[in-house]
């Protein structure tokens, strides 16, 4: 690294002091010999156990995610049932007063259109994700 300015030279010197390499522990080679002497079959078993452990964790995580998604879907379904019913309950008197006998069918048609629009938007979003 070609330091040119005084601050760069000072930084270079300071980094050389601050970033000291780690030294090899005294027992490094003894441990290495022990590692090499280990039975390959034992090593394979240990690796299998590690992989199985990771797989179990992954499955548990997936199960948790599925449960959360299920709860989310249940919540959305409940909201989807109750929200239109409450809206209808609130709007029906006004619609009947404004449109007479046509009030109820008009609300039903309006609700269907809104529902179809939402479904269309959701489907198009899903397709975009797939693409």
């Amino acid at each position, binding site marked *: *690294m070609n*330091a040119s300015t*005084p*601050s*760069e030279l*000072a*930084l*270079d*010197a*300071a*980094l*050389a*002091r*601050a*970033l*000291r*390499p*780690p*030294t*090899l*522990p005294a027992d*490094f*080679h003894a*441990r*290495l010999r022990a*590692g*090499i002497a280990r039975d*390959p079959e034992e090593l394979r078993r240990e690796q299998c156990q590690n992989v199985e452990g990771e797989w179990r*964790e992954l499955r548990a995580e997936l199960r948790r995610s599925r449960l959360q998604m299920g709860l989310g879907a249940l919540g959305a379904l409940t909201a989807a049932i109750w929200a239109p019913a409450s809206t209808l309950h609130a709007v029906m008197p006004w619609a009947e007063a404004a449109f007479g006998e046509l009030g109820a069918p008009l609300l039903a048609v309006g609700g269907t259109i809104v529902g179809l629009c939402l479904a269309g938007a959701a489907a198009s979003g899903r397709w975009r994700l797939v693409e």
Partner: protein
Amino acid sequence: LRDEAELTEEDADVLALLHAGAHAAAFDRIATRYAPRLLRLCHAFVRDPAVAEDLAQETLVRVWRALASFDHRSKLSSWIYAIARNRCLSAISRRRATEPLTDEMGEAIADESSPDPAALDAAGRLRGFVETLPERQRLALTLYYYEECSVADVAERLAIPEATVKTHLARGRTALLARLADAGLAEANLWIDPSR
């Protein structure tokens, strides 16, 4: 700086032993020669001395197990460093996968990477700032000083061209000076500990 010829020549004895089928003797030389370098490389990657030591051990065990199948198509050193890098990257991705960052942890790490200048000595302060550099700059800079300022060695350890190493070093140094200035440590004597 050592040039390519010297680096190749360095492992000539090991290659001769391998050709002669003396794998155990070849590995002894590899372990003696490469253990400190692998420890430094792994430490630069993972920044944890104990983990780095385990990774250096793992690398050498893998080298031992694969030594008979070494095909001489690449340099011995490049092959060994590639194994080490793969071990380090796997360890880092495993650690990220098993320790998802919660908000509190993220904040804690952010705090760690913005060192309190008053709480550390000059070297510790500087190391803290190095930690805040982008990964490639941090890695190049750390290895550069670990490897006694040899750009060629850093390039070989990371399997990148020397010009790229020089770019990372220059950018890292510029970024460090800027961050030190931002932290009110523009004066060199604030981050150089005269006692060391």
